[in-house]
């Protein structure tokens, strides 16, 4: 049991616990905060995987911007807790749990049956790992090979912004 593996299992337990907390808390604010914890733990996983820049983007964009938007809308609507539990589709919950357990079991069985994948390159284990996913390398690939998709994402964000403004516009006013 190397220190890395111990760290991995500890963090994995925290990530799964946070996801379960998000699923089962009654209050939507608590769910959002559990999800922030989950995103922070995944950012640490990105660091372990040699992606420091992605990890920082994860913290600022996901745990920062997107979750603040969620919390803002929850508090704006005052919709922390649903008023009445629903009676529609009562068989859905047990079926979901059974199928979810089956799916995870199938994936884990496949992973244990699969032939041993070659280990991650050892050269990446030390110094190169830190440079591999750094801002310099990521930027060079993003602005050369993926320049067109990068520009298209700006169009996507523009359309999303216009869509959001149009959707929440008050139609009674001119």
């Amino acid at each position, binding site marked *: 049991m190397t220190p890395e593996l111990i760290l991995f299992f500890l963090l994995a337990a925290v990530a799964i616990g946070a996801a379960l907390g*998000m699923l089962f808390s009654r209050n939507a604010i608590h769910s*959002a905060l559990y999800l922030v914890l989950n995103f922070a733990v995944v950012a640490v996983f990105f660091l372990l995987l040699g992606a420091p820049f992605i990890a920082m983007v994860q913290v600022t*964009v996901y745990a920062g911007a997107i979750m603040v938007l969620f919390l803002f809308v*929850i508090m704006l609507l005052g919709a922390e807790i649903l008023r009445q539990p629903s009676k529609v589709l009562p068989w*859905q919950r047990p079926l979901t749990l059974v199928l979810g357990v089956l799916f995870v079991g199938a994936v884990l069985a496949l992973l244990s049956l699969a032939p041993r994948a070659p*280990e991650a390159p050892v050269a990446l284990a030390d110094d190169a790992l830190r440079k591999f*996913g750094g801002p310099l390398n990521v930027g060079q690939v993003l602005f050369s090979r993926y320049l067109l998709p990068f520009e298209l994402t700006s169009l996507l964000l523009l359309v*999303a912004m216009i869509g*959001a403004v149009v959707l929440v516009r008050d139609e009674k006013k001119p």
Partner: protein
Amino acid sequence: MNPIPTSYFVALSAILFTLGVTGVLVRRNAIIIFMSVELMLNSANLVFVAFARQFVELSGQIFVFFVMTVAAAEVAVGLALIVAIFRTKQSINVDEINQLKG
């Protein structure tokens, strides 16, 4: 230093993804359903980065950027939709949003 095997990350990602699917199917609060979708996208990102390390190929990390962009756009439009629905129906319970007429 022994790197953590990629298959461990795939297994963790599968568990997180299933928890996200469970959230979409079990919960009735539209905002929590959205958060579960974010959880699923995030578990896909984890696999992308894990395989980027496995194959020493930065494209996996670049795709995480694009997934994040799509997630941000989706959240902006989705939350605007939820606000618009809440204005007319005073509820974000997805079981009460069951009629197509306005």
